[in-house]
Every structure is written in structure tokens, then in C-alpha cells.
């Protein structure tokens, strides 16, 4: 089962490689990993999407908590949560396909953020399956390039992850 692990960690050189190294050393799976500083410049927040049995996820959170630079770890999937991912996709947009692409972007609530006479760059936000669905919905031959941020997530309601 897929899990979204949110981690607060000290914003120090090498902290990211400690987390990434832990996952590879213990053969845990990483589907996506995002990290950026929080409103507190001393703390970064990392979101890792992983999968495994309940035992494996328990070990992952315990092992993460053991890392000296890790402040807090939470498995967002334990309760209601929001997960979002951002994708930029560069597509061919010429002739009839140009209007069709604009329509598809509108349907998926995407925004066209760069335009040339032959190309659109579309920005799309949503959960992973929505982004997958967009890719499925358009003609594969028109896709020039995609880039995705990986998932970031936050708990619903009054659950707060903070130092």
C-alpha cells in the first residue's frame, strides 16, 4: 500500500543524503521525494511517497526517527490528508491540435504558462492520478517533455506537523 511520509528535518548539509541513503541501504522503496525549506529557515520539510506492508512502514518511520537530523515523522495516510503534485508539460500545439490542447487543459483545470506558435507549456496541479489521466487523455505523440514535482501532502483538519 502507498504511504505518504512527511518529515521535518534540520536544514543542514547532508541531511537529504542521510534520508535517501537510509532508504537505499535498507531496500525501502521511494516513489517520489520532495524537499524544501519551511517558513522556519532552519527546518526543511520532506515528503516521501513509499509503499510496503504495515511492518515495513513501521520500520521506515522508526528508522527515520533514529536519524539525528530528523525532527518529526508522520505517515499522512494514517488519517485524512491532501496530496498534491505539480506537473509542467510541454506539448506540440499546431493546427487543429492547438485548440484541442487548450480545451483539454481547461477541462483538467490546467494553465497554459508559455506559448509559442507551435508549443504550449501547461501547468497542472492535482493528485498523481489526475496528472496521469491528463497524460493519458492527450495524444502521446504531442508530448515533448514532462516534469513532475512529486507529491507533497498535508493533513486535513487540526492535525499539524510542526517542530
Amino acid at each position: 500500500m502507498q504511504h505518504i511520509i512527511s518529515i521535518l528535518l534540520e536544514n543542514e548539509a547532508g541531511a537529504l543524503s542521510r534520508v535517501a541513503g537510509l532508504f537505499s541501504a535498507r531496500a525501502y522503496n521511494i516513489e517520489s521525494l520532495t524537499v524544501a525549506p519551511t517558513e522556519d529557515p532552519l527546518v526543511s520539510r520532506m515528503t516521501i511517497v513509499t509503499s510496503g506492508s504495515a511492518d515495513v512502514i513501521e520500520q521506515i518511520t522508526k528508522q527515520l526517527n533514529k536519524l539525528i537530523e530528523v525532527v518529526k515523522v508522520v505517515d499522512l495516510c494514517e488519517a485524512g490528508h491532501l496530496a498534491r503534485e505539480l506537473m509542467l508539460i510541454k506539448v506540440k500545439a499546431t493546427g487543429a491540435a492547438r485548440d484541442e490542447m487548450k480545451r483539454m487543459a481547461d477541462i483538467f483545470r490546467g494553465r497554459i504558462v508559455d506559448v509559442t506558435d507551435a508549443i504550449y507549456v501547461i501547468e497542472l496541479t492535482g493528485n498523481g492520478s489526475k496528472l496521469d489521466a491528463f497524460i493519458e487523455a492527450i495524444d502521446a505523440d504531442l508530448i515533448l517533455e514532462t516534469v513532475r514535482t512529486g507529491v507533497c501532502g498535508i493533513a486535513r483538519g487540526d492535525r499539524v506537523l510542526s517542530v
Partner: protein
Amino acid sequence: MELTGAEIVVQSLAAEGVEFVFGYPGGSVLHIYDELFKQDKVKHVLVRHEQGAAHAADGYSRASRKVGVCLVTSGPGVTNAVTGIATAYMDSIPMIIITGQVPTHAIGLDAFQEVDTVGITRPCVKHNFLVKDVRDLAVTMKKAFHIATTGRPGPVLVDIPKDVTAERCEFIYPERVEMRTYQPVVRGHSGQISQALELLLQAKRPMIYTGGGIVLADASNELARLVHKLGFPCTNTLMGLGGFPGTDPQFVGMLGMHGTYEANMAMQHCDVLLAIGARFDDRVIGDPRDFARISRRIIHVDVDPSSISKRVRVDVPIVGDVREVLLELTAQLEAHAGSVDKPALDAWWTQINEWRGRDCLRYDRTANIIKPQYVVEKLWEVTGGDAIVTSDVGQHQMWAAQFYKFDKPRRWINSGGLGTMGFGLPSAMGARMANPDATVACVTGEASIQMCIQELSTCKQYHLPIKIVNLNNRYMGMVRQWQEFFHGNRYAESYMDALPDFVRLAEAYGHAGMRIDKPADVEPALREAFARTDQLVFLDFITDATENVYPMVAGGKGLTDMILAEDL
């Protein structure tokens, strides 16, 4: 007062009460060596290879409950030490490794003797630091000692670029450090402890299984008190030997791959298991699915939450310092109105004694060739059971564990987790430095001893009268045993050809050597060697080349699936 980075390193070590630094100089640590030279609080021990430095610091720590410190230069100094660092990490030994690094402006430019030390060592340290600013040095040293010695202990590495050791800043050594991200649990949860007690009192077939955590937490007295109060059988892991007295009637021997028949049977068939400072590893319980075949309630006490429910699901987890938990468990037991189920316990002991009757460690005592087990038995007798015994890795290690009955903790020093050949001699040096009056023996084999034999020179320089008990069977014995059992007697590369004359080798290093090839000479040779209290004696025992370690649980098998000597 403004000090250089090098002075700060040495002053910090002195402030931590460090007596010895085991190390080897080189370009990037020259400023630090210069400061060591100018003072006499912290003594330096010059090894002959950086692996030896790490093992010696490790052995010092294991034998003394103090922090072992090791100092090596950048590049090859670090990579040579990595085996020793990983060895300490696997056995949770508190240790500080100070490594030189190329100057900050040269980092990342493939400078001479540059290596990504923090990257290379990251998976085999509890934590590591690269200090890029001299103003961070003192607090980093304090953090390193704090992290190494608290919670589940482990090695911590501090990597210091050469320019940082030359720069100056104001030096104040912090009294203590607070780290919001690192707050190990000390006291166990009282509610969990009382749940554990209820289970123990209901048990029909109880078992107490303890590991290296008892030794590391200095909790052996507290353990003995609880075990005696309960009257339950107790087994130790390889790392836990000496945590409970080896000659105590309630001790059923070591368990695991080469554990006793009675320990493994009791472990498998118990209905309530109290595991303390142990981690159910593959060499201890074998196949976890087979172990789970028989249902039992498990109480697991450990300072490291990630050790709990890692390989085996437990019913009552208790996270905390094992000594604190044992104290509270015993206090709750004393205050409790109930008592153990005596008739059930008597029946259980009857069963265990029947298993004991198999006499699983017996060997041929009539042979006219030296049996390695006999040498260890005699070693135990001659040293009054009170020596510090280090070992390397292989058959000799298992015989030492099985036949030397350790009554006290920190007497048995071996590489249990990583299984590092070459560990025995340098760790014996560290153990002797920590205990200058102790009798120190290194039980080894002709293969292992050659992996760090250069340290015979260090032993000469520092007058370390270690007794090397070499069980020379001309084979990498454990490899040979597996090849005999599982690879159709094809002894691929396990024969130790072209062995040196160990007697003359020892003499060449300025020590004494003895070669013993008759059973009748074993005890007199040991007596003579241990009487020479001022000299290192290399005892080269020519032992039976085909002897195997029994019992044996083959890799991946269930714990009771034992190969016994009597089966053959």
C-alpha cells in the same frame, strides 16, 4: 582564550577525560599531532594500520565502559579505518573517530588523499559531522560525545579539514548540549512494565533472553537479581555473554546458530519470552517464520525502538534504558502480591534439564591430536575464568564463546555483528590499555590473526603482554565447515597454505612464541605463558584440522533444526 582548531580538538578530548587516542598520523592531521605532542594529558597510541586503531579504540571502549577515540588522516587513513568503524557500529560501541580532511578550499576537487569521508562512513556510524568552521568545532566535539554515549550507543565521526585545525577562535567547551532532534528515551513505560510482569507471572514455560544491551547498559547485576528472583532460565546471545554469569545454574548457555541444544529448545518452546537488549537477529533465531510457528507472548525491552518488532512481532514493547527498566520491573515484582507458577516452572526445568542431558558440547577427549575446545577449557581453568578474552571470527570464536564461561560482563570482546576477522589482536590492545592489570587473551586462528598481525609491533612498543591463543587448524575453519556441510567437501580456497612460522614471527617482533602440538602439553604451555606477566606470548596450538562447531543451525533454518555432533 583563542585557540587553534587543533588545540580545540585536544582540549575537548582532555575535557571529556579521554586517556588514550589510538591513531596514525598523516598530512591532514599534522596540526592535531603537533598539539598532542605538546601536552601529556591525552596519550597517543601509535598503531601500525588504521584498522588496528579503530579496533583498539573499540576494544578499549568494550573493556572499560569509556569512549574509545581513534584519530586518522584523510583518504586512505579513513578508508582503512572503515572496517573498524563498521565493526563498532554493528555492535553499538560508543566511539569517536576524528578524521583529517583536505583543506576546505580543496574539498570536491579530487585533492591528494581526499575522500568523501562523511559519505563513505554515513551508513556505518551513528552520526557524522564535517566541521567547516572552527567556531563550530568545540560544540561539535561535545555533540559527538553526547550522541556516541547516549541512547543506543555507537561510533560518531568528526571530519575536520586541515585549515580548520589551523584557524583560531575563542574556546569554550560546553558543559552540555541540547539537541531538539535527539532525545533518547531512558525510563520505560510503567504501564507496559506492569503488563510485562503480569505475563511473566502467568508463564508456564518462561524464558529470559538477553543480548549486548545488558553489557552496554551495565545492567548485569540488575539482570541477575531479576533472574534469581523469578527462578527462570536465562540465555545470552554471543554479544551478551557475561551479562549473566556463565556458571550460574539458571544459565542455559548461549543460544543461536551455535547455541546449546537446551537454550535453543527452550527459546523455541517457551510460552513467555522476556527479551532484553537483544534484537532477534538471523544468527540468533534463524528463520523468523519457523520461530513464529509456536505461539508465545514476547516482551521486548530495548533502548532502540527500531529494534522492536523488526524481525519478530512482539506483544509488550518497552522502550528504555534496559537498566532502568530492570530496576522498575524488579521493584514492581517485589511489590506484587502474586508469584510465579511454581509447579509449572518445576516441570519446565525438568524439561530443560532433560535437554541439558544431551550434553551438546561434548567432544572427543581421548584424541591424540589437540582439540580446540580443550584448549579453551584449559584457558578458562588457567586464567581462573577471569581473563578478558578477545577473539577474531570463525570457529575459534564460537569455541571461545561456548567453552569459556564468562561470569562477568566486559570480559568477552568479539565482533558479533559485522564478524570482522582481524579484530582480536588490536581489540586486545585496547582492552589491556583500559585495564593495565588485567589478564588479556586473544583467542584466534591462523587465518584471522594474519589480518592484523602488524599490531604485534604496537604490542611491543607499548609493552602489552597479551597472550595470543592461536587455534591453528590450517584452514579458515568456519568456511571449511560450511564447505563440508553444504558444498560437497569442496574446500575452495579455505586451506591456509604457506603459513608463517608463528613462533619465529612472534620472536621477530620481540615477543615470545610457543608451538604446542600434543594434548598433554596444552595446560603446561598455558600455565607457563600466563606466568610470564610481562611478556606477550604467542601460543601456536596445532589443532585438529577437521573439528567442527556443534551444535549448528544452518543458515535460514529453524532454531531447533540443529546439527549435533552425535548425529554424525
